């Protein structure tokens, strides 16, 4: 199996696990599910992190983000059906809804005044809402510090 095939399988498994459970699998769980050694699974996590597919907790192989999904609660929860996911930012929350069928609700807040801002999306159509997305970091520098971005 090539690294390309292995990494694709690992990525797919991680996203499917994340979507089903709202949490990413450990490298051990991925190894077991895909019949890999832990070394192979961990190396795939490292390559996918180097390729900016995953973000790992520093010094570990725990997935913090498998874009657009965040393993930790954030100010950007996306409710889709009975499940709740978290985006690392509003872009990821909108991307989560887009990725998972195109309908859902994002219960966010204005970053300035903390007023509730609810984005209701039905079949990729956003109900009218007074809100603006702000990119404090230019796209060319997103990965300089992706957690800050």
């Amino acid at each position, binding site marked *: 199996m090539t690294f390309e095939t292995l990494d694709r399988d690992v990525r797919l498994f991680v*996203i499917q696990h994340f979507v089903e459970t709202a949490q990413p699998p450990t490298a051990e769980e991925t190894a077991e599910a895909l019949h890999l050694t832990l070394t192979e699974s961990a190396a795939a996590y490292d390559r996918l992190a180097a390729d900016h597919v995953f973000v790992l907790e520093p010094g570990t192989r725990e997935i913090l983000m498998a*874009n*657009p999904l965040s393993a930790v609660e954030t100010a*950007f929860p996306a409710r889709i059906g009975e499940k709740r996911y978290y985006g690392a*930012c*509003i*872009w990821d929350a*909108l*991307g989560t*809804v*887009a*990725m998972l069928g*195109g309908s859902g609700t994002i219960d*966010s*807040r*204005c*970053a*300035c*005044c903390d*007023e509730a*801002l609810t*984005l209701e*999306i039905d079949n*990729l159509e*956003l109900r009218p*809402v*007074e*809100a*603006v*997305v*702000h*990119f*404090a*970091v*230019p796209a060319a520098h997103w990965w300089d510090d992706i957690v800050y*971005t």
Partner: protein
Amino acid sequence: MLLFRSEEHIDRWCEQRKLERGGTMSPETALRLGAIWYADK
């Protein structure tokens, strides 16, 4: 990327943090771009 009530709230937030104002887009545009971005993920 953060969400704000209005452009004025972005200005206030940037001023409080002494940050340069960045680019903006409507949530509708961000959703459309996200749909394209994540279509094959």
